[in-house]
């Protein structure tokens, strides 16, 4: 085991896979210089400029060229630099990558990984802070990965690179310098398996990505008051671990979904709907969401702070749930 930051864990995951599989290559802006986040540091020296390709600022072609290479047997890691720029490559992602296998009757599997660092980070304002992972859970044909720890980022990235399905990998910007232990070699973590962070009978709290450490802190605070919750980090929102969530809610009878993205039509709505459907209203005392209001992310720190989750907000939401 070795203690590293989340971004370094992700760097080691790609490095490990590139060493064993010559079909894997990285393309994106500035990646030959290590990438905006240092997530490809020293790759150029080891793999050369054909496999570590600094591209022009051409998001549509970064995405589409990644796909084209996959159609001739390569396994690209497509780096979007910051999630919000994927908007410039939506045709290539939504109409092409997510469709080729189906539309062509299974003739090709686009084995691409699209990395999209997302979420609020150092007051980056409305065009550099978004969390729209729910959009992509809505999109048939793709896997949606939303890790929160170094070990999960590494293991899920290894799984993503080995996957024949297209994988949308939401790197959590705000957690890049959080440290944690990873095993080497890095073992793949299967998609759709939640991680139980804390265990308890009082309520089920479901979360993912940057909300995980906030909810974890909240669970610790609640525990000091004798309130123990099942805290589940979904890790991937498509597929998502319905069995684990449903089993937990059957036990606790109370569900809170916590996410950094906007609440309206967020993925929390899907979780709640599915749980209501599967658990039934007799055994379910309350099912709620704690998420952002439906406003863009503002710049000024006190403004942004209103949108952010906090352990206190989560604690209060759980207490409200228990009172219901």
């Amino acid at each position, binding site marked *: 085991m070795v203690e590293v930051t989340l971004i370094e864990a992700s760097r080691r995951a790609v490095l490990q896979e590139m060493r064993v599989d010559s079909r894997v*290559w990285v393309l994106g802006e500035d990646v030959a210089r290590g990438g905006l986040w240092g997530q490809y540091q020293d790759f150029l020296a080891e793999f050369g400029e*054909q*496999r570590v*390709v600094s*591209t*022009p600022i*051409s998001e*549509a*072609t970064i*995405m*589409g*060229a*990644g*796909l*084209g*290479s*996959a*159609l*001739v*047997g*390569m396994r*690209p890691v497509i780096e979007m630099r910051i999630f919000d720029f994927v908007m410039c490559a939506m*045709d*290539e992602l939504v*109409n*092409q990558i997510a469709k*080729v*296998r*189906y*539309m*062509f*009757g*299974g*003739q*090709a*599997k686009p084995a691409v990984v699209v990395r999209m660092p997302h979420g609020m980070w150092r007051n980056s304002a409305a065009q550099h802070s978004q969390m729209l992972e729910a959009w992509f859970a809505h999109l*048939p*044909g*793709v*896997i949606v990965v939303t890790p929160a720890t170094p070990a999960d980022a590494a293991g899920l990235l290894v799984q993503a690179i080995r*996957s*024949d*399905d*297209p994988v949308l990998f939401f790197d959590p910007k705000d957690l890049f310098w959080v440290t944690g232990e990873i095993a080497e070699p890095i073992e793949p973590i299967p*998609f*759709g398996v939640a991680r139980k962070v804390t265990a308890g009978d009082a309520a089920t709290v479901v979360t993912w990505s940057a909300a995980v450490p906030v909810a974890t802190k909240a669970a610790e605070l609640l525990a000091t008051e004798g309130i123990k919750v099942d805290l589940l980090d979904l890790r991937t929102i*498509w*597929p998502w671990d319905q069995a684990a969530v449903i089993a937990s809610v059957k036990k606790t009878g109370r569900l809170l979904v916590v996410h950094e993205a906007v609440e309206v039509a967020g993925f929390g709505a899907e979780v709640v709907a599915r749980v209501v459907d599967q658990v039934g209203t007799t055994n379910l005392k309350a099912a709620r969401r704690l998420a952002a209001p439906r406003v863009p992310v503002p710049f000024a720190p006190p403004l942004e702070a209103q949108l952010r989750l906090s352990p206190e907000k989560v604690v209060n939401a759980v207490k409200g749930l228990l009172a219901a």
Partner: protein
Amino acid sequence: MSDAGDNLRRLTGLYRMMARIRAFEETALAAHKAGEIPGPLHVSIGQEAVAAGICGNLRIDDRLTSNHRGHGHAIAKGADPRRMMLELFGRAGGYCRGKGGSMHIADFSVGMLGANGVVAGGIPIAVGAAQGLKMQQSDAIVTCMFGDGAVNRGPFLEGLNWAVLYKLPVLFVCEDNGVAAFTRADTVTAGPGVIDRAKALGVAAISIDGNNALAVDDAAQVAVTAVRRGEGPHLLHVRTYRITGHTSTDAAAWRPAEEVEEARARDPIARLGAVLAERGVEPSELGRMIDDARAEMAAARGEANAAAWPEPAVAFEDVQDTGAVAWSKSH
């Protein structure tokens, strides 16, 4: 065999290919009008010399990306018109198991990486495929077909720039039929056109008469050779004319009748037929090639009409390996 004999065989092959493309599309049009083919159908009647002339110079392991008007490209690249017709009819035996239709024909076994329902959508895919092939040290090339309407979309600029930067083996083909859907392309395209745009980015580019199959064939041969030798991307601007409307249901009545008549007089199949006749090919032989092509496509239509639809569960297949939803009767 003498050079002249080789050449004649090549021209006859071009003629036969154009006749098959024309027959395929005329048959499909008739089937669409008869209600046998669902969905939109874009045919390329009058443009056959482009597909035949370009693709005749490609190897089977060369890749091709195409657009919404791509039946000819697919047939010329070696796709089987029977399975294409089945796909147009939405039948289980079609190339895409009935899940793609006319706008999404693909045959990876002959390097045909797919038609595309999004204008310019094939351009980034083509450059990426070329980049992959280059990494694999293959000498296969990628041909990227798009219309004159595509040059006003961002991926055109991005893709050409990209192909030059990495010196990729891509042959860009701008199939210029003068119109983008219902709008004359020159009324919505600034500047002197695609050739100048390509040259400004360092792409070797020439313009040719796309209704002259020999000219297309010659130019393609030169360009394909250069691209395969590693000289970087090339662009062919191929000027042609779309005799029919944008889709099967569009009469394109806004065009003056004389303009269409004039274009008919430049019909690429008749023109190559005249050349072949001059070189001693009997009119009866030319007629036989047309008849054979029509019979081939009529048989494909008959087979498609009788063919089975896909099973309902097929709608749930080939979505993804992990996280796929299962089919059940209650959906």
